[in-house]
């Protein structure tokens, strides 16, 4: 109570002082006019800047820390803090640390510092410990030698994950509020869940940053972000829903840009369901999705129809054309599966075809996709009941009584073909919600997991994709787009498919 009265009192004083604040602010603004600054408003707030623990990858996004390997605009792996890497044997990788890179406190980035950063990372992050499967880390001159407990051909791609960012190892509290990395911007102040204020790193190894100051702010409400751009509180705002993008496009001072993301909205089928375990039924349902309509009508043009699990720009994407909406073909397939139309209802052995579809609200377009399938299926006499659940993973792993489920995933967040195919199709994969167990796929996945050569990996990956697509274990619907709106004075910013390196040394304002 005491604290409350104190806050009320402080509130009064502060409100009164607010009146006089505006004049000082304008003076400060005049002083800062020579400095080039920019405010970037991101959608996910974070309460920590510790790159090994922050699930929102803020430090890499805001240009504070960097990773050994980076995903470039062509969605290929590119040397970054590591100038090169090679596999010594199937368990050992050697990464050469880039020459001439300094930490933001002026000390040199060397193999020892990289080793310490990794050791600390796997110590605090369960997910990195599980993903990297490291047996030991050692150094050899300017190289870091990683030994894994099992063959991990995707190891270089795993090192694009922001949790593997290289930081100067210090105490946890310092890492939480002001980590020292090698990126183009240095943390000035961090206001948990509100913003990070950054100043340029004049000794940045890849060229001096063009901006003097950057504010990397957070706001998870899309309307508020759009208004922040309109009011001048933000220069770039990340992630916009289609309806807001359309209204912002009409403002001549604002530029709106979109690019298809690495995410895929898809449908999973339950292999334990007697109905959808039939390949013909899955094929039929697959051709009942009107992917063009989902992209253009449901998502206002903010998505592209998907022809496979991966964004078509990846070198390992099988680049198939999206399946066309074809209800008569669907009906034919159902007839092949033994269903016959009876009074407008598809029946087998007198039983109508009724399916249970599970969806969830946290991605608003998914329930709409479910409804669209429901209505398209009804036209050919198939009944689909939709059930919306709060926690999809939990529901699907504890319930057997479902046939179809909507899902959404970043299918290749680190530019390797292996993550999604293993997660979704191997029997032990954490995302294999439909309990797919196909001996042919298992065999070829084993081969994929032994293949280190990138081109060969991509080819084997494509084979898996083709097999999964032929058997329709999942129906890939659309790749949603990332939409970014910015003030027209912003220079050298274009929306990138990789969502990690957002603030760069090239970013500028007029």
């Amino acid at each position, binding site marked *: 109570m005491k604290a409350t009265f104190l806050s009320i009192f402080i509130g009064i004083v502060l409100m009164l002082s607010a009146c006089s604040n505006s004049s000082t602010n304008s003076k400060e603004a005049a002083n800062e006019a020579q400095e080039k600054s920019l405010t970037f408003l991101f959608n996910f707030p974070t309460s920590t800047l510790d790159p090994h623990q922050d699930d929102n990858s803020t430090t890499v996004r805001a240009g504070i820390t960097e990773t050994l390997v980076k995903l470039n605009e062509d969605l290929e792996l590119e040397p970054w803090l590591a100038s090169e890497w090679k596999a010594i044997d199937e368990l050992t990788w050697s990464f050469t640390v880039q020459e001439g890179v300094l930490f933001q406190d002026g000390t040199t980035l060397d193999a020892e510092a990289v080793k310490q950063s990794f050791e600390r990372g796997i110590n605090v992050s369960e997910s990195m410990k599980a993903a990297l499967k490291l047996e030991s880390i050692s150094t050899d001159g300017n190289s870091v030698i990683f030994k894994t407990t099992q063959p991990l051909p995707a190891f270089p791609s795993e090192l694009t994950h922001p949790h593997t960012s290289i930081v100067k190892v210090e105490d946890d509290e310092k890492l939480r509020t002001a980590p020292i990395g090698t990126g183009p911007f240095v943390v000035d102040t961090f206001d*948990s869940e509100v913003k990070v204020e950054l100043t340029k790193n004049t000794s940045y190894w890849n060229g001096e940053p063009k901006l003097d100051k950057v504010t990397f702010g957070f706001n998870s409400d899309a309307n*508020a972000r759009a208004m922040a751009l309109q009011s001048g*509180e933000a220069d770039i705002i990340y992630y916009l829903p289609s309806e807001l993008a359309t209204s912002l496009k009409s403002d001549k001072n604002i530029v709106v840009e979109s690019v298809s993301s690495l995410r895929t909205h898809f449908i999973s089928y339950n292999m334990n369901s007697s109905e959808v375990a039939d390949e013909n039924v899955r094929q039929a349902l697959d051709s009942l999705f009107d992917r063009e309509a989902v992209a253009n009508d449901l998502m206002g043009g903010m998505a592209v129809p998907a022809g496979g699990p991966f964004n078509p720009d990846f070198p390992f994407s099988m680049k198939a054309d999206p399946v066309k909406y074809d209800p008569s073909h669907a009906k034919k397939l159902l007839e092949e599966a033994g269903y016959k139309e009876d009074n407008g209802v598809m029946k087998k052995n007198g039983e109508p075809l009724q399916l249970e579809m599970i969806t969830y609200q946290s991605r608003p377009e998914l329930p709409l996709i479910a409804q669209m399938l429901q209505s398209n299926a009804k036209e050919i006499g198939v009944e689909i009941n939709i059930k919306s659940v709060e926690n999809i993973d939990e529901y699907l792993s504890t319930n057997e009584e479902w046939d179809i489920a909507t899902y959404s995933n970043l299918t290749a967040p680190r530019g390797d073909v292996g993550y999604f195919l293993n997660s979704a199709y*191997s029997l032990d994969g954490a995302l294999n919600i439909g309990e797919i167990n196909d001996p042919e796929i298992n065999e070829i996945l084993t081969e994929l997991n032994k293949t280190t050569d990138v081109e060969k990996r991509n080819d084997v990956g494509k084979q898996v994709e083709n097999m999964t697509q032929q058997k329709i274990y999942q129906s890939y619907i659309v790749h949603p787009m990332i939409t970014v709106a910015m003030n027209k004075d912003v220079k050298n910013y274009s929306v990138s498919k990789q969502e990690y390196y957002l603030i760069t040394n090239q970013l500028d304002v007029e």
Partner: protein
Amino acid sequence: MIRYLLSKIIQIIVVLLCLSFLSFVFIKLAPGDPVKAMLDIDEVLITEAEIEDIRSEMGFDQPIFVQYGMWLKQAIKLDFGESYLTNRPVLSEIQDRLQASLELMGGGMLVVILISIPLGVCSAVYQSKWIDHLGRIFSFFGASIPSFWLGLLLIYFFSVKLKVLPFIGNNGAESLILPSLTLGLAMSAVYARLLRAAMLETMNKPYIKALRMKGIREKSLIFKYSLRESMIPVVTMFGMSLGNLLAGAIVVEILFSWPGLGKMVVEAIMNRDYPLIQAYILLSGIFVMSINLIVDLSYYLLDPKLRRKEQRA
């Protein structure tokens, strides 16, 4: 008075124990898995076996009573464990956000006091006059506008159109104005009506009429006698609102990038960050019950009859 206080405190402890146990059980029974969130299963290749290993490492395979016992043993020592997601002590996480929540709560309450007391008193004194009608219209809109919409309207008007007030984050006094208004306006509407009704009732009481006939000035009748008595229902509700304000300002916190407790707990629930949720429930329980205790005690200050009763007993 002391006996009353002691019995209240014992009650509070019993209620808190029940609260902590029930919340512990319900959180554990609710669907969701913190291990999956910790392991980033939707971004990192993990096998089911690895998930199981960590689950047993964290003691999730133990019976629920054992888990609660372990938690309680630590909690008594004021050690609420560490957040699963950030590995920081839960108390530090809460402490970091408490200040922002209190500031917002203070701002909101200030708006409530500044609007509802004058409006409530004037509506009662000038019953059926224009100010009473105005108060009624204000209350009607205030109570029916959802706070996210009111917030967006305020942002649109003051930040986008007039460009006079900032709204993102906590950059000093100016940035407290819009969230406080959003939070306080809707509540003021309810308080103003409540105070008006209480004032009307009090002002019609025989002793006020008697005082008026004795020639006591109207001003003292209103402020010294009627307002004081009419504050009892208002203070009761104020106590309840404080609890709501501390936890329920989520929409406002999201809209204005305000790093408060409401937003923290929603995120904790999404990620099934049990230690954080559990500590939050317990601490809000303590907070709400202490406020109720203070409210009870404040009746003594507001109502002389209660004090006399106590002296007689």
